[in-house]
């Protein structure tokens, strides 16, 4: 089950953060997202020896904490998407699919002429699309 998604801009400024649990641990989730930004920077600046994964947008599992798994995705414009999930067996293809749809929703939200780049995303349509994507992620992975 996805507990949190976040969009972070290229100066590490938060553009959108949304948690999907009822529990009141949004502070802890923000802390997890914040720590994962360091891991993203480290992955990008110190590439592993394997060449083919150097320029991919999908960064994969960033780090597993005791309850959560954190996945990262970095776009060409240095915008980071962070996904925090409690699922124990998450398929790689599912996460990639999720990020692809999330990226499409993000691009549509950014193309709004009234959206100011660098400010938080306030579009209700974006929030609805994200919650639809999050719900369908849960459906497809519980097989």
């Amino acid at each position, binding site marked *: 089950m996805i507990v949190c998604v976040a969009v972070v801009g*290229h100066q590490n400024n938060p553009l959108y953060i949304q948690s999907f649990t009822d529990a009141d641990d949004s502070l802890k989730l923000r802390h997890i997202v914040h720590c994962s930004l360091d891991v993203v920077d480290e992955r990008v600046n110190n590439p592993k020896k394997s060449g083919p994964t*150097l*320029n*991919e*947008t999908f960064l994969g599992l960033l780090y597993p904490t005791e309850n959560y798994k954190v996945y990262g995705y*970095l*776009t*060409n*414009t*240095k*915008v980071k998407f962070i996904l925090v999930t409690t699922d124990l067996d998450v398929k790689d293809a599912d996460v990639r699919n999720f990020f692809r749809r999330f*990226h*499409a929703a993000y*691009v*549509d939200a*950014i*193309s709004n*002429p009234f959206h100011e*780049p660098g400010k938080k995303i306030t579009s209700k349509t974006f929030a609805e699309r994200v919650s639809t994507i999050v719900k369908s992620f849960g459906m497809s992975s519980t097989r």
Partner: protein
Amino acid sequence: MGREVSESCVDSLLTEMVSMYCNRLYANKPELAASRIDAIGYQVGHQLSERYTMERPRFTDHLDAIKFICKDFWSELFKKQIDNLKTNHRGTFVLQDNRFRWVSRMSLDPSENGDLSQENAEAAENKAAQEPNMHLHFSCGVIKGALHNLGIACAVSADPSHLPACSFVVRIKP
């Protein structure tokens, strides 16, 4: 997604935008009009680059990003690629388009403006030369916004001396 408009609508919008900024809002201050049009282009380029880099892997260096502008970005916008790319390998690139779409239908003949008396002919020629320049400010803004979004700070200027062929000079700031 999936709604489209015809190209003539985009042409008309650009023409009207340039005419509004030059003739009504900043009638006697062409530099301010130019910088406002540039800023509009910047925002458009910023958002378009976000959309067109969606499925691509990340760029490794500046040349890769400039090549993306020349090939994918230009073909999404104008259905053709940049015809010629030159660089001095020290941060300056010249992108040449032999038939730039947005000015290809503009009249470049100053005598069509009606007045044929001596001093008016000169003013008309200046005004006629200004119109495509203002359109080019918008295109420079689009390129600048796209490159800034990819992390490359640069200055873009256009060379309108051989319309409808147009060269854009991109200078990357160190």
